[in-house]
């Protein structure tokens, strides 16, 4: 009876890609689209990731902008995922980070600046200008301080975008330059290969840093947007 059972099975079978449902058509060459176990679990991770980040972003908006301004949660949520996914997708080798494009980053920040300013004027009208005169300022200093506050307010439009753009461009440029040195060094003989292992380890650490920078810059972009929204709504 024992010889009717299959006893030996490979421990590597768990790693096979299994097709659940697929669509095949003889168009565009051989068109195949299929849902595999890899694809299913990726979608589950995406759903869990979206769900778990909802609470974080909701509490960020409540804390920064205020509990009565939860109408901004969808915009902040979308903005965060737009920037974080743009940055992370850009970290995949041979892909492209569109936040490294100056006009995209600056376009986002100028759009946020204009939106926040228009919101401020709609809520407070002419009283919005009181934002540029901090409470408790001596009367003699008001012209100078108002000018400095105005310049710093306009600088927000550019600093928000340039921070994102510069971080991503600098990180990717560094990785490109280092990989340009490392690849010839690794492929130029056995001795040089072993000598280059330490710089290679540093390069891998820098890739990890670039992933962290992608996440951090998205978070900083989002939290500063919340802060600018709060300034426009509450004027202090």
């Amino acid at each position, binding site marked *: 009876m024992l010889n009717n059972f299959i006893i030996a099975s490979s421990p590597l079978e768990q790693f096979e890609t299994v097709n659940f449902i697929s669509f095949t058509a003889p168009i565009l060459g051989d068109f195949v689209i299929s849902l595999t176990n890899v694809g299913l679990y990726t979608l589950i991770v995406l759903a869990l990731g979206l769900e778990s980040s909802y*609470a974080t972003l909701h509490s960020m908006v409540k804390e920064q902008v205020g509990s009565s301004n939860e109408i901004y949660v*969808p915009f902040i949520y*979308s*903005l965060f995922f*737009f920037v974080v996914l743009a940055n992370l997708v850009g970290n995949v080798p041979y892909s492209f980070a569109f936040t490294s494009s100056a006009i995209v980053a600056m376009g*986002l920040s100028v759009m946020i600046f204009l939106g926040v300013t228009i919101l401020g004027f709609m809520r407070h009208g002419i009283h919005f200008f009181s934002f540029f005169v901090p409470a408790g300022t001596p009367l003699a200093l008001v012209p100078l301080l108002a000018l400095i506050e105005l310049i710093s307010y306009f600088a927000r439009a550019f600093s928000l975008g340039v921070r994102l753009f510069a971080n991503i461009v600098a990180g990717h440029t560094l990785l490109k330059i280092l990989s340009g040195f490392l690849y010839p060094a690794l492929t130029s003989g056995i001795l040089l290969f072993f000598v280059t292992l330490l710089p290679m380890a540093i390069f891998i650490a820098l890739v990890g840093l670039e992933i962290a920078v992608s996440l951090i810059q998205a978070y900083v972009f989002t939290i500063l947007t919340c802060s600018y929204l709060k300034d426009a709504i509450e004027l202090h």
Partner: protein
Amino acid sequence: MPQLLPFYFVNQLTFAFVVLMIMVYVFSKYILPMFTELFLTRMYITKL
């Protein structure tokens, strides 16, 4: 610097804003209400 070539600005800006607007629409209409309902249901189940 390739990022500063004005020829591509319109294309880059258009794609960025169209994708962002689509994301805002999809998130605010479908995904976020689903999560709000889910968290509210969990609160009702555990607290009430």
